[in-house]
C-alpha cells in the first residue's frame, strides 16, 4: 500500500509541478524573467499527498463488499467507527446527498465571507457558466456519444438571442432567457437533421463547420447583428424588477434604494454569482435526472450500440434529435447568462477554442459523469486564473497539465462507472463486480 501511495504522490507532484513548482520573477532593471524553483512548496505537496493517499487507502477498507455467499457485509478494521462513517458520507452513493448539500451551502456562503474579492467571485461566476456548458455538452457527447465540435455555435445563439431580443424589442433578461434556450434547442434540432446518419469523425467535422458558420454569419451580417462590433450595453439581470445599478432607469427601482442601503458594486457581483450558482446546481440536478430517465437510457444505449438500440424498439432518430436539442438548450441558457454577465458580446467570444475548451471539460471530467464534469469545469476556468502570475506562459502550463492528466488518468477526474471498464479493465476494485470470477472469463 505504501508503494501505491508513493506512486500516486509522485504522479500528482509531477502534475502540480508546472503550476506551483516554479515562479517567474522580473528583476529590477533587467529585461526578461528568471525562473525560481520552489522546492519547498513541491516538497510540502509531495509529503501532503503521500499522507492523504496513505490515509485514504486505509479508509478504503471500510467499503461495503459482498461476500461470496451474497450477503452484504461491512469489513471491520481497528479505527474508530466515526471515521469510517465520515468517509462513507462521501464514498457511498446513497450518502452523497449530505456532502453535496454541505458543498452547496459553502458555495452560497462564499461571497459573504471576508477577504473574498470581487475578482474571485467574477471568476467563479464564469466558471459556473462553463459548468452549465460542460453539462449540456455532456448530454450530447457523454451520454448520447455524438462528438460535437461546434457546441459554441449554440452558446453564441443563446448570447445573441438575448442581445438581439433586447436590442430590437427591448426584452428584459428574464423574458429573453427561456427564449434563448428554446432558440438554441431549435438550432440543435436543425443541425441534428442533416447529421442523423453520421457518426464519429464525420459528425465531428460537420458540427465543427456548423459552429464556424454561426460565428461567420454573426460576424458578417452587419445590418442585423452589428458585425464585429457586437452588441453593447446589454442590461444585467434584475431581481424581481430591482436593478443593480447606481441609478435606476426611468420607472425602475434599484436594489439599494429598495432596501435602503448604501450602493455597492459588490451587490451586483454577489447577485450574479448566486444566480449562476443556482443555474449550475439546477443544471446538475436536471442532467442527473435525465441520465436516469427513459430518455437517458435510450441515449446511453445508442452510444453503446446503435443497431442493438434500434432493435430494442428505441427510435434512434428521436433520441439523436433530442440529445442535440437538449444539449443545445443548455448552451442557449449559458449564452444568455454570458451576455448578461459581460454586458457586451461580439463574435470573437465564440471561436472554435471555446468548443474545444468545453469538450476538454467533458473529457477531463469523465464522459457521462455529472459531478466529474462539474469539477472539471471549475478546474478548467480557475486553473488558468491561478496561473496568471506566469503571464505569457500560463496557457502552456495549462496545456501541460491537460496532457499529463490525459496520459495518466485517461478516463477523466471522476469517471462514470462504465468508462472504467474500457480504460482500466484490469482493476477489479473499480468494476463493481459481484464476483471476481469475471477476470477468469475470456474477454472479447
Amino acid at each position, binding site marked *: 500500500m505504501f508503494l501505491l501511495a508513493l506512486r500516486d504522490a509522485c504522479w500528482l507532484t509531477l502534475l502540480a509541478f508546472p503550476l506551483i513548482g516554479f515562479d517567474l520573477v522580473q528583476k529590477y532593471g533587467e529585461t526578461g524573467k528568471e525562473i525560481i524553483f520552489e522546492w519547498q512548496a513541491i516538497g510540502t505537496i509531495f509529503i501532503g499527498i503521500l499522507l492523504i493517499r496513505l490515509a485514504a487507502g486505509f479508509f478504503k477498507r471500510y467499503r461495503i463488499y459482498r461476500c461470496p455467499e451474497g450477503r452484504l457485509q461491512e469489513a471491520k478494521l481497528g479505527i474508530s467507527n466515526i471515521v469510517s462513517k465520515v468517509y462513507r458520507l462521501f464514498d457511498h452513493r446513497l450518502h452523497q446527498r449530505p456532502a453535496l448539500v454541505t458543498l452547496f451551502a459553502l458555495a452560497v456562503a462564499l461571497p459573504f465571507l471576508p477577504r473574498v474579492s470581487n475578482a474571485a467571485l467574477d471568476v467563479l461566476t464564469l466558471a459556473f457558466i462553463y459548468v452549465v456548458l460542460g453539462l449540456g455538452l455532456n448530454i450530447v457527447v457523454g451520454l448520447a456519444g455524438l462528438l460535437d465540435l461546434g457546441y459554441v455555435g449554440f452558446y453564441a445563439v443563446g448570447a445573441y438571442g438575448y442581445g438581439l431580443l433586447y436590442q430590437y424589442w427591448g426584452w428584459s433578461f428574464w423574458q429573453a432567457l427561456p427564449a434563448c434556450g428554446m432558440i438554441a434547442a431549435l438550432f440543435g434540432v436543425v443541425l441534428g437533421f442533416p447529421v442523423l446518419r453520421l457518426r464519429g469523425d464525420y459528425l465531428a467535422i460537420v458540427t465543427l463547420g456548423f459552429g464556424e458558420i454561426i460565428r461567420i454569419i454573426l460576424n458578417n451580417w452587419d445590418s442585423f447583428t452589428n458585425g464585429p462590433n457586437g452588441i453593447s450595453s446589454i442590461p444585467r439581470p434584475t431581481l424581481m424588477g430591482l436593478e443593480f445599478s447606481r441609478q435606476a432607469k426611468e420607472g425602475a427601482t434599484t436594489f439599494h434604494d429598495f432596501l435602503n442601503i448604501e450602493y455597492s458594486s459588490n451587490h451586483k457581483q454577489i447577485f450574479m454569482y448566486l444566480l449562476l450558482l443556482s443555474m449550475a446546481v439546477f443544471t446538475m440536478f436536471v442532467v442527473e435526472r435525465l441520465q436516469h430517465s427513459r430518455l437517458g437510457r435510450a441515449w446511453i444505449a445508442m452510444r453503446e*450500440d446503435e443497431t442493438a438500440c434500434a*432493435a430494442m424498439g428505441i427510435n*434512434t432518430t428521436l433520441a439523436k434529435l433530442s440529445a442535440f436539442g437538449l444539449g443545445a438548450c443548455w448552451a442557449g441558457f449559458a449564452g444568455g447568462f454570458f451576455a448578461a454577465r459581460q454586458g457586451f458580446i461580439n463574435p470573437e467570444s465564440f471561436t472554435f477554442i471555446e468548443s474545444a475548451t468545453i469538450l476538454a471539460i467533458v473529457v477531463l471530467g469523465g464522459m457521462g459523469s455529472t459531478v466529474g464534469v462539474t469539477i472539471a469545469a471549475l478546474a478548467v476556468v480557475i486553473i488558468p486564473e491561478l496561473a496568471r502570475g506566469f503571464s505569457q506562459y500560463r496557457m502552456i502550463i495549462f496545456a501541460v497539465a491537460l496532457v499529463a492528466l490525459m496520459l495518466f488518468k485517461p478516463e477523466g477526474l471522476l469517471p462514470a462507472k462504465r468508462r472504467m471498464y474500457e480504460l482500466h479493465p484490469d482493476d477489479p476494485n473499480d468494476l463493481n*463486480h459481484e464476483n471476481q470470477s469475471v477476470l477468469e472469463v475470456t474477454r472479447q
Partner: protein
Amino acid sequence: MSKASPLLALEDVHTFYGRVHALKGISLTIAKGEIVALIGANGAGKSTALMTICGRPNSGSGRILFRGEEINSLDTDRIVRLGISLVPEGRHIFPRMTVRENLDLGTYLRSDHIEIARDLDQVFDLFPLLKERTKQLAGTLSGGEQQMLAIARALMSRPRLLLLDEPSMGLAPLLVKQIFSIIAEINRSGTTILLVEQNAFMALKIAARAYVMATGLITHSGSSSQILLDDTIRAAYLGG
C-alpha cells in the same frame, strides 16, 4: 405454409445497398409457432433478409406482411413495437452496461412491471448463468454468455417473432449445442422463430422447415428432412 394467414410473409422483396442489389426478390412465409431456418453460404443475403424485415435498410420493392399488416416502409422501432425482436449478428450487447441493464433495455417498450418481473424470472430459468452475473458489465462476459444475453434481451420484449442471426457464430461446439437446445425450448414455449445460420446441420435439426439462399435468391425450400436429403444442397452447404 398451408395455414391461411402466416405470421410473417415476404413477397418478392428486393433490397439495395446503394447500387448493390443484395436481395433479388425473395418470398417466404412463417406460420405462428413455427421455427424456420434460413441457410446459405457467406454473402448469400441471409442477414440482409433478416435486417430488411427489421427495416435496416427498408426493402426497395416488394411487400413484407406481419400479421397481415404491411411493414416494409416502417422504421425499425415501429417494427419492433409490432412484436418482432432481432438478435443481431455478432450479438450487439451493450458492453458497458450491466447484464441487468441490458435486460432492462429489452423491456424499453413495455410498462407492465409485474409481467416484466415474471418474464425476467423465466429468462433466468432459461439462462441460469445470467442470473449469477446480473451486476457484471456485459462486455466482460464470454462469447457464449454474450450470445445468451443477446437472446435473453430479445425475449424480454415478449416478441411474437424472434429473429436470430447466426447464434452459433464463434462459439465452441459444446456451447453451440447448448444454445440450439435453448432455442428449441424457446420455440416450444410458443415463440415463433426465424433462424439464420451458416451451421446448416444444427439449424436443420431444430427447424421444421428451411429456405436455402444463394446470391440474393431463395434456391430451395421445404421441410428440413427433405433439404437434409437433397444431394445438391448437401454438396453445396452441408459439406457433402
